[in-house]
């Protein structure tokens, strides 16, 4: 039986509910240095999904017993604003938030040079201001941009996108009703455009063959995101005050 509010068809004549092609992103917006107090900050949007990230540190780690004399500690916190969804989200820590914070933290930890800053903590705060699916991907992209903007030494950026299966078809960038009524939702992230997956979460039933195709599609998507992330910095610093390597 279909769920309440489920549209009959999500893909008509190869077009999705919002008019997109199967392998097309929603409009992407990227902006860095959007906040004054944070050392690094960024906004990343997939259509109506609106993620804001801020980085503080490296700074003295509190509580002190959590300090590591050899290296810095990364602490990533993902949270959603109460007004970000149709039904208000109760403020506070949910199990979902804790889990997503953990996987984002693990993903980002692949690229940070922790040994450069012993005894410190690097705090990454991800706020989802509006949620329309793929929030962890938008949040991770924003977080990675904010880390770079904060001047934290990293090997590369983390680039993230979602893929999935809707109406039996494989699609890029799950958005809107596709999240709730689609068959499969898969969040992925790679180190830059490399074949190194640092985030991979899948919900829903797929055959192995379909899954392999999803992986391929995810690689393409993450590569596209990586280009957008790089271009953001190239644009911002093209005046030549600070040089950024491509």
């Amino acid at each position, binding site marked *: *039986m279909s769920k309440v509010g489920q549209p009959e068809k999500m893909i008509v004549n190869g077009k999705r509910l919002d008019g997109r092609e199967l392998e097309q992103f929603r409009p992407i917006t990227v902006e860095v240095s959007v906040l004054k107090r944070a050392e690094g900050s960024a906004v990343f949007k997939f259509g109506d999904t609106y993620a804001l990230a801020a980085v503080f540190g490296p700074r003295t780690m509190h509580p002190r017993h959590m300090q590591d004399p050899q290296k810095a500690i990364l602490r990533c916190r993902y949270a959603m604003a109460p007004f970000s969804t149709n039904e208000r989200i109760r403020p506070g820590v949910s199990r979902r938030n804790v889990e997503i914070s953990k996987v984002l933290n693990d993903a980002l930890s692949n690229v940070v040079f922790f040994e450069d800053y012993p005894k410190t903590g690097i705090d990454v705060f991800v706020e989802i201001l509006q949620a329309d699916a793929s929030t962890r991907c938008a949040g991770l992209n924003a977080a990675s941009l904010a880390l770079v903007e904060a001047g934290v030494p990293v090997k590369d950026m983390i680039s993230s996108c979602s893929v999935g299966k809707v109406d039996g078809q494989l699609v890029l960038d799950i958005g809107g009703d596709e999240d709730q009524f689609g068959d499969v939702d898969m969040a992925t992230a790679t180190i830059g455009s490399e074949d190194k997956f640092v985030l991979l979460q899948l919900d829903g039933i797929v055959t192995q063959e379909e899954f392999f195709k999803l992986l391929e599609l995810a690689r393409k998507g993450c590569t596209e995101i990586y280009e957008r992330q790089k271009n953001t910095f190239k644009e911002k610093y093209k005046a030549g005050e600070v040089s950024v390597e491509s």
Partner: protein
Amino acid sequence: MLKASENYVRKLIDEGMRIDERKFDEFRKIKIETNVIKKAEGSARVLLGNTHVLVGVKLSVGEPFPDSPNEGVLIVNAELVPVASPTFDPGPPDENAIELARVVDRGIRESKCIDLEKLCIEEGKKVWIINIDIHVLDHDGNLMDASALGAITALLNSNIPKYENEKIMYGVYEGKIPINDTPIAITVTKLSTKLLIDPNLEEENALDARITISTNEKGEICAIQKGGIGFFTTDEIKEATNLSIVKGKELRKLIK
């Protein structure tokens, strides 16, 4: 001290060996017992080598979610009980316990193995709520697979109590929880470029990354969770899915 042991584990793995002399695709000895807790509607004990997990299923009656008014509700919770490890503290579930519960939850939920519509008592008002509680009693690695196996085993053996005049008559049963698939979670661990399954605690402490893949009876994938600081290449992920499907079939035979 831990470091030395980690290096030793990695050195062995590089040479194609494991500290407990298992093959890379070999589980530890698995022991499963069902109906170990009489007060629960269903229960299972899983021993994976020295890892020991107890899972209990309890049913209660409550309101359905507004977007699925005719379906029962599934709730999975995991407790890393302090008896299980010197590193577990009493208190509310930490991120590891939450991840464990959510991975087990997704494996079961996404496989759609529970016929939730049969758990509706009065549409929009009253449905059965299935609480699966995972109690980790001894932690020697691979809690994910042990817990997921315990959860589906307990579900397969769970009864629905009689419900009369707004009261649940615990201990008097009306039938089984309708289950039509057996999702099995297999965690593939990457250690020094090698892939292996069922890591013990020492291996887990040294791992680069892990990926938990749940598969159903048809050999389809129904949930994936990558964990740990480290990455997987496409080829490694593909190999991991093969391992999960093959090993999933083996484990399924133990409980069905």
